[in-house]
């Protein structure tokens, strides 16, 4: 996994506005298969920086290397045909069908008919729009979310190593935006492209990016992973930009598996209530988790429940829904803890087998690391 994209002291000064540097000595390296989100307030130069990568905006000074080749020495048209480009207003060609839209770059490159047809079909399937239905429709007939999916498919048509995305989900409504973000991350799992993703939304940047590049007034303020940005903001500006709730934002990034206390004391459902009582007293706990013989969660018992006469613990078990799968985010975990007055939640796997418990102090501990 080498470095696919490298910006070195890239600067942009517009003629006629020589006193302002739209982009000021921007440098960073992006590894192959990673998503780099360019974030910053309006006018910080993020879109300008991205457009310099495919030479829509000429570089004033500095170098940009793609796969160790200087882009200024490459043929502009060939360069652009090998970079996927997705824009905010989607920009589908209204006079062409969806199929023709996606086939644009392959046709420019002179692929033969069958290969193009095959590729178009597979791309439509990747973005979850059935080919038979959508191939011959026109952009106007589609909703914004669908159009942008086509925009992404179109950009991936020739399997470009790099993709540039300029606020691609900005013009979509919030519900579809989340859906598209998740879909896109799933696609990225499969195709592992090197992506430069411009956004003004810090939450989107944190969610989508492997590395975040925060810009202000054309200058690079911090280039770091989301976790680093949230735990070690470089300065006041970053702290402010990320938002006062930056620690809470980290909850989105971590899974409850990381903060759980594993192997909690449990009791099998066919044990006697007396044993349960003695365990409760020993552990000085208020509740005891009851599981079946496969260690699957059944419920819990407390002192009150054990007052009743019963042969097995299982008969007096109280059911609970204070549990979550281990792959859930800490944010969901914390929210679930607050929902129940159990004081903690039970962490289970896909088969509802008990893995551990999640408590508030467990979460605090991991956040402080």
């Amino acid at each position, binding site marked *: 996994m080498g470095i696919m994209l490298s910006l070195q002291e890239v600067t942009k000064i517009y003629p006629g506005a020589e006193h302002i540097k739209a982009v000021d000595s921007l440098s960073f390296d992006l590894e192959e298969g990673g998503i780099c989100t360019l974030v910053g307030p309006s006018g910080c130069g993020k879109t300008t920086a991205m457009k310099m990568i*495919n030479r*829509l905006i000429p570089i004033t000074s500095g170098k940009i290397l793609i796969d160790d080749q200087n882009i200024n020495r490459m043929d502009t*048209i*060939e*360069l*652009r*045909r*090998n*970079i996927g*480009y997705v*824009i*905010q*207003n*989607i*920009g*589908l*060609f*209204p*006079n*062409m*069908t969806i199929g023709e839209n996606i086939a*644009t*770059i392959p046709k*420019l490159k002179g692929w033969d008919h069958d290969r193009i047809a095959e590729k178009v079909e597979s791309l439509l399937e990747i973005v979850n729009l059935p080919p*038979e239905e959508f191939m011959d429709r*026109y*952009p*106007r*007939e589609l909703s914004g979310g669908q159009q942008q999916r086509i*925009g992404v498919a*179109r*950009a991936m048509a020739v399997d470009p190593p790099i993709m*540039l995305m300029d606020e691609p989900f900005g013009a979509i409504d919030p519900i579809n935006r989340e859906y598209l973000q998740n879909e896109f991350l799933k696609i990225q799992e499969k195709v592992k492209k090197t992506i430069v993703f411009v956004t003004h939304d810090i939450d989107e940047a944190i969610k989508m990016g492997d590395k975040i590049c925060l810009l202000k007034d054309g200058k690079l303020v911090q280039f770091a992973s989301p976790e680093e940005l949230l735990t070690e903001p470089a300065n006041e500006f970053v702290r402010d930009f990320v938002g006062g709730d930056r620690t809470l934002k980290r909850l989105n990034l971590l899974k409850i598996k990381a903060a759980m206390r594993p192997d909690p004391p449990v009791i099998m459902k066919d044990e006697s209530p007396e044993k349960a009582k003695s365990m409760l007293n020993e552990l000085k706990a208020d509740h005891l988790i009851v599981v079946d013989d496969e260690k699957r969660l059944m419920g819990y018992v407390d002192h009150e429940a054990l007052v009743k006469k019963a042969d097995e613990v299982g008969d007096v078990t109280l059911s609970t829904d204070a549990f979550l799968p281990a792959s859930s985010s800490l944010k969901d975990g914390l929210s679930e803890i607050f929902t129940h007055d159990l004081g903690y939640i039970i962490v289970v796997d896909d088969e509802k087998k008990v893995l551990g418990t999640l408590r508030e102090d467990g979460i605090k501990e991991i956040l402080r690391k």
Partner: protein
Amino acid sequence: MEIAICPSCKKEIQEDVKFCPHCSNAIVSVSHKSIFSWQWAEKIFLFAVILVFIGFFQPWFPGSILDQENPLSAYGMLLNVSSLDIDFLESYNILRMALIVPIFAMLIYLLAYLRTGMQKSEFLPIFLFIIVCISIFPFLFNLAGTFFGIILSLILLAGITFYFKSAFRKGRLGYASYFLILFFICLSVFIYQLDLAQTFYLKLESLNFSETYGFWMTWFVFGMLILIIVLNFMKTIEDFWLMLAGVILSIIAYNTFINPLFISGPFAFFADNFRVVGIHTATHIKIVSIALVIAIFTGVPIGIYITRHQTAADIVLYLASIMITIPSIALFGFMMPILSSIDRAWDAVSGIGIGAVPAVIALALYSQLPIIRNTYIAIRNVDPATIEAGRGMGMTNFQLLKQLQLPLSAPVIMAGVRTAVVMSIAIAAIAAYIGAGGLGLLVSEGLQMATNDSVIAGAISMGMLAILADIFLQKVEDWITPTGLKIAR
């Protein structure tokens, strides 16, 4: 006529069903097949009728038009049909009346057809029915005797009413404009018959109702027919205007027969000078077409060029708008000496000082503004996001133009061409004054020789030509608009 069929089993289905009722396959998109319909026969018939009517005025048509001896002559045919050996028939008028009326009826039919895009109709059978009635009824009634004649006409009327009413209810009949034609023809023919009746009356000594009632009965039947049609079809205000137009045209056509009024004169003029008018129309179309082709091939590239160079844009648009303010006569005036001197200096060309060449050049110059300006605006108004996407994907300027900018600008450019065409047809009238020919000659010669009919006939023809050209170009515009742009959200 096209019917929707299932793509798998090829049986007829409704347009919008999802599953074929015959073979139970799911239907993604329906196929169509053409079946013979009255519409086909209608088109053939229409074409044949127009040909025949034009043929009537050609000397090469079997028999000379006025030759009463020749059994094939149109004149003779008419005589036999009406079986009236009356000397007023020697005047040309009856012929004009009988033939011009249907010609204009056909023209209106054509316009209505193009305008409303008629799909299905039963115009043809009704039309044939009417023609037959025109010929036969008077004799039928006269032969049948008074009493039976009345009964016969009442039965006939009942039958016609029933036919129309049931057809209306089932929605099989076409648009009101069809029946405007019907109305127009009927009214004209009644008036014709009315006049024939009068003349008949004049010629016969003793006349009572029983002698001429055939005419009156026919008139009555057709009158009722008209009333039914009108009452059934007047649903919108446009129908009213159409009907009014039909009435007026009928009256004009009638007057062609009786005495040329100021309005009907031009129609008589058309009848008398059909061939000449045809030649002038052909020249007019030729001049305008050549000028347009030149204008498109210069204007559109210039328009494309100036979208990329703003300063050039300002200059070119400015020049083009100045060009259009130069009065046409003045421009033609400039052309003549310039071209004449080129003529003298350059042996390869001759006779370019007057005639078609300056006309074509001047028209091409006038057409530049609408075409250049529309091209410029259309290309600049293409959504910048689309262009940015195209450029970012690696399209060259030429590819951007060919695949995006031109298809997306085509409708607006076509609109500019339409403007230019209509404008040119009007301005080409002036071309007559410098010897280029065309319909302007009708106007100029008419003015010179104080025959107002000619002037008005010329104006009418240019108007009709402009309307027809616009309709035709509208169809072309529809044809070149990319499908993707026609779909509404």
